[in-house]
Every structure is written in structure tokens, then in C-alpha cells.
């Protein structure tokens, strides 16, 4: 039970103080280092709650940061570095999940949800409009102005 309590506290605190990238690990070439930082930001620290290796001071995150920099220094492209890390640690290491069978729902879901919502709104307007159209005889412009005045007495919102 105490373990769970500690876990809950950890969750409540949602991240540990981060004292991540160390000057010692950094590459001398600023352009290469900047690429390393960009890659690190999208790689997950596998032993942490929810942190990138760039933000975490866990030993494993440090090892991964060094690994990324080694590959970059050896001349790999950004994609090659990421692929290499994924080949060793799996998709779990990617904070941006890849687009594949197991994540189709995740990536397509938002568009489907939005389209569904939009459709519902369109249907809502159509149905309401339909109700208005089947009304016995349409009011003339003058009549509807009068009606509006009467219904909406003060005319203010």
C-alpha cells in the first residue's frame, strides 16, 4: 500500500526535477548538437513516467542521449538515428507514435471524430431547416419582421 501511495505521489508530481543534458555530453559542433537536441525531444525516456530523454536525468536517458550523439557524429542522418534507436527499443521509445496498423485508430481517429461532429451539426441544421420548410405557408418578409419583434420583445440578446 505504501508503494502505491508513493506511486500516486509520483503521478501527482507528474515529473521529476529535470537536470537533463549535461555539458559533458554535448557535441562540439553546434549544428550537430542542435540536431541531437531535436531528436532527443521526441524520444521517450523508457524508465520515466512521461519524459523525453532530453528532459530526464535518469541514467538510461543519459545513455540514449550519448547514443544519439555518437550516431550523429558518425555521420548518420536524423532518420537513421531514430530508426536505429527504434530497432533497439521498439516503437515505445517514440513520443510521436508511428503511423502503422496498431496506431491507425489513434491517427485517423481525430479526423473521424471531427467529421462525425461536423456531420451531426449539418444534420441538425438540415432537420431544423426541414421543419421550418414544411410549415404551412411561409411568412412574408413583413410578417416575419413583425413576428420577430413580437417574439423577441425587447430585441436585445
Amino acid at each position, binding site marked *: 500500500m505504501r508503494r502505491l501511495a508513493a506511486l500516486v505521489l509520483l*503521478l501527482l508530481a507528474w515529473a521529476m526535477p529535470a537536470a537533463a543534458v549535461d555539458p559533458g555530453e554535448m557535441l562540439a559542433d553546434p549544428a550537430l548538437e542542435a540536431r541531437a537536441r531535436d531528436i532527443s525531444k521526441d524520444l521517450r525516456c523508457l524508465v520515466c513516467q512521461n519524459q523525453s530523454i532530453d528532459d530526464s536525468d535518469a541514467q538510461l536517458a543519459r545513455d540514449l542521449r550519448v547514443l544519439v550523439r555518437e550516431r550523429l557524429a558518425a555521420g548518420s542522418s536524423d532518420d537513421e538515428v531514430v530508426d536505429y534507436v527504434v530497432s533497439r527499443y521498439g516503437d515505445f521509445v517514440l513520443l510521436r507514435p508511428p503511423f502503422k496498423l496498431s496506431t491507425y485508430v489513434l491517427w485517423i481517429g481525430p479526423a473521424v471524430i471531427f467529421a462525425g461532429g461536423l456531420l451531426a451539426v449539418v444534420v441538425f441544421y438540415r432537420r431544423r431547416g426541414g421543419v421550418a420548410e414544411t410549415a404551412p405557408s411561409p411568412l412574408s418578409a413583413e410578417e416575419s419582421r413583425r413576428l420577430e419583434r413580437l417574439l423577441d420583445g425587447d430585441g436585445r440578446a
Partner: protein
Amino acid sequence: MIVEIGHFALILALVVAFAQGTVPLIGAHRGDALWMAAARPAALTQAVLVAMAFGALMHAYVTSDFSVLNVINNSHSTKPLIYKISGVWGNHEGSMLLWVLILAVFGAAVAVFGRHLPPGLSARALSVQALIAFGFLLFILFTSNPFERVALAPADGRDLNPLLQDPGLAFHPPFLYLGYVGFSVAFSFAIAALLEGRVDAAWARWVRPWTLAAWTFLTAGIGLGSWWAYYELGWGGWWYWDPVENASFMPWLAGTALLHSAVVVEKRDTLKGWTIFLAIVAFSLSLLGTFLVRSGVLTSVHAFAVDPARGVFILVLLLVAIGGSFALFAWRGPALMPGGLFRPVSREGALLLNNLLLATATAVILLGTLYPLFIDAVGGAKVSVGPPFFDSVFVPLMVPLVAALAVGPLLPWKRGDLAGALGRLKLAFVLAAAAVVGIWFVFDRGSVLAVLGLGLAAWLAVGVVVEIAGRIHLLGIAPVASLRRLLGLPRAAWGMTLAHFGLAVLVAGVTASSAWKVEKIQTMRPGDTVEVAGYTYRFEGARDVQGPNYAATRGRFTVTRDGEPFVVLEPEKRLYPVQQMPTTEAAIRSTFLGDLYAVIGDAEGNEGGFVTRLYFNPLVPWIWAGILLMVAGGVASLSDRRHRVGAPGRRPLTTEAASAKA
């Protein structure tokens, strides 16, 4: 003794909650006035009982009563008084007690302020409120009892997690819970309305202030948490799309949608079913948030299965509450008759667009938050859903929302004139375009999207000003008459203006801080200087200092700008010996355009060198200012006489309400 009284009061509260959750409900069904009348005294009694229990636990903390297990695990005699108090809710058991306390206080408030409500509605709503309390009281008493004693009291406690010993986080949970639990009132009223089969403008009038109050608290709570993450975690970020953050953000988004759709119900008597649905969703997401954070399911569904008692209990509670209310909605919802018609281009249409985008955003975040759990549970390969996913799906939904937000308030009800509204926004368009061009030249390394983001913020900000200028006929009539109109505006109008303007400021802060952050990480020896965004930091060295319950290394930077002394920054690295846990205390100096942010790391070499992280975080103060403006907007709106919960008698009563009252 006091602890036992608290424990006993909690058991009594459970009994009262059961009575309150059944008797008035049956009374309302049978039309029995006496049974319905039991709701109010029961709600008050329950609040008193839970307050007694909470007071007893707080007493145990303040007096460091280490015969109580909960106090041992989360307190220490040397801890400052404020953190002894905040320690009460800095742990699982205590925070659940706080949850129930707030629920009971809201229930009592409904009982007190709702005297003029139709008796059936009030009885049913208070019953639903009590049923929620009943579930949570059972949960506390059977799985998370904070009053458990130990046979042999240790000499001292194990202390509170040092990260939580912080003013920002001390008050983050109460505000968050005031928001979460505040939505329970809208929920209870929604269920009561479904049971009654009637939703009208009067119903929306009663629900709006409660929703507004909950929204305001939740905004403040999320803001405090974000602020805390920013200065305490030492990486200069303030939001990471962490599941725990999402857990509080989803009810906020749904609550924001509810706040806006309730306006349509009140003014135009339409979108009723949808508003009821949102009220159920907002509170369901609050429950879900509580479940996600409290059950341990986030770390892994397997961790959850190791110690399942609590998790399973909340899960069952969740299924009963959410499943039950949606089933009721499916059954009774279709009977709600739609009211006034409107065109897509109209105030209602704009609010519906707001609801579409906010509801989609809520659903999308829910999908991203639960997806890893889902994949894990079905045994698929583990996936991480991190900030890059959320950014890429959330931002495209917020851009049209912010863009349309400038236009919506300019449209009249029922049928609007889009060209006319856009015509009034010419100034906003010109100024936003000017801002884009100006910023583009100032930051030559700027990202196009970030510059457009700032343009969007400018568009909204000017749009808000144009709207209020139109209301007071600025430039159209004599300035004095304009001023008189300005002062005569209802506070609710001020509330909307402040909140929308706050959003513009927030958008600017969020955009700039993520796009133009400057970071320098290096080892510095005393005397070394580093330049960050035009400021020169000179490291003067570090020394050891002793705090009340921690030891710290305090670094000192003298910051100069153009050779002129600007500020001295003293970041700390602390070690709390009881939990052997280090924390960083960033030193921050805010300016109008951004924060100077300094962090000191580990000692390096033997010449007094330290790892230092120096940041310039552009427009971060705007984030906090934006949130404060939104909170101020909520407060201003709440203070409007038309919304004031205590003044229902003064507003025009609908015939139904009038007859129910008579």
C-alpha cells in the same frame, strides 16, 4: 480521540448520504413534499459531518500525531506549518477526503442558495449529489481510510514528497478539486432535469453560475499546477501533455463547451439535449480524471492489477455513474423538445461551432490519453503518445476556434450577417497583419507558424476590443455617453470580454514561449560569463545554505544588460534528507517580454565549477497573465446580479417556476 471522532463523523456522513440519496428521490417521484424536504437538512448535516472528519485529520497533521498511519507516511515534525496543512491533501487518502468535503460543501451550497428552486428539481439534484458522495465515502472508508492508527507510534514521520512542499502546489489540488467537483452540481441538475423530463431557460439559469464557478476554479487550479511545473521542475516548460495534465484539461474543455451551450439554452431554449449531455460529460471526465490519477492505471495497466482494490472500486464507481447517467440520457434525452430556430451564421451558430471544436478537442485528447492503456490492455506492442501527437492534433482545432472567437460575439442571435461582422473586424485584420509583418522582421529566425500564431492572438485581442467598443458605441456618440454605457455594462459582459482577451494573451504567451525559447547549458566557474538573449550572466559562485527541513546549494548570478546591473539571480539545488530527494529551485526574473530563468546543477571539477542552465523564456508571464484574466472574467461574470446564485427571486420567473414556487 479527535481522530476517532473524525472517523465516526465520516461513517455518519455515509449513513446520511444514503438517506439523502434515497428519501428525497422517492419523495420527488411520489410527489411527497415531506420526503422531498428531507434533502436540504440532510445536505447541511452531511457537510458538517464531512467537515468534522476533515478537521480531525488536519488536527492530526498540525499536531504531528504519528499514531496515525497517514500522518506518518506524509508528514514530519520539522515541516513548516503550511506544508503540514497542505500535507493533508498531498496524499491519496487525504485528497479523497478533500474531494468529498468539497462535494458536501457544494451540496450544502445548493441547499442554501437553492431555496427558491422548484422542490422536485432541488430534491432530485441534492439526491444525486448525495449518491455521488455515498460512492466516494464508501471508497474512502473501505479502501483508503485516512484515520487508520498504528499500534506503535514512530518518533517521526516519513515527510511529504519535497516536490509537493511548495506554495504553488499546496493550493493546486484544492482549486483543481473545486473545479472537478463543481461540475457535479451541473451533473446533478442534468440528471434531475432528465428525471423530471424538463429543461428550460430557468434550468439553464440555475446551472450556469455553478458551472461558471467550477470552470473558474478549474482554470485557476490548472494554472497553478502549470506555474508550479514551470518554476519547480527546472526545465523551463509548463505543459507536457502528461496524462495527469490531460486528466484535468479534458473536464476544462468540456466545461468550457458547457458554459457556452448553457447560454444558448438560457437565451434561446434550444440545444437542450446537447447541454445536458455536456453536463454529464464534464463531470464524467472529472470522475475519469480522478480515476486515472488515483488508480495507478497510468503507469501501466499491469501495475493497476497488482493492487486492484482501489482501482477496481473506482472503476466500478465510474461505470455506475457514467454508464447510468448516459443510459438515463439515452432514455429520456430524446423527449427534450427543441426550441428556437437559428441559422448557421448567428450567435447560436457560433456557439455551436465553439462546441463542435471544443468537444472534438476533448474527444481527441481522451483518445490520445487512453490509447496507450488500451493497446497495453489488449496486449499490443506498447506505444507512447507524447507531446508531438497532441500538438499536431490539438493546434489545428484551436486555430479556427480562436479565429472564429473574434467574430462570434459580433453576430446577433438567430440570424447574422457574416460580411457585416467581418467588416467591423477590418481594424483587427489590419493590426494582426501588421503584427505578423513586424514580428517577422524582429525575429528573423522565427518559424512561420509561430508568427501566424501571434497574428491570431492579435486578431482576437483587437476583435474583443472592437466588440466592446461596439457595445458602448465608441466614436459613434459623445465620449461621455460612451463612458456611461461602458460603466453601465453588465458584469457578465465584462466577464466575457476579460476571459476572451485573456485567451488572446494566453495564445501569444504559449506561441512565443514554445517558438523562441533560448537555452544555454554549460559548466561555469566563478567569474565566468554567459550571454543569453541580450543579458550577460556572471557566475559569482555557490555556497551551502541550510533550510528548515533541507540543505541547499545556492548559486549566485549577477545579470547585466548593456553593462548596467539588471538583477541578481540565486537558484538553489536542495536536498531533503528525510526522503533523500533533490529538488531544483529555479531563480526567475520576469520582464514584460519574458522570463530570465536560471538553474544550478551539479558541482563540476574542483575549482568551484557548476553545471548551469540559463534560459530566456519569451512571453511566459503572458501565459500566467492570460490565465489570471480568464479567472478574473469568471469572477466578474459570477458577480453579475443576474447570475448570482443567491438572488433567484429577483429575476423574472417563468410561469412554470412561478407556479412551482407557489
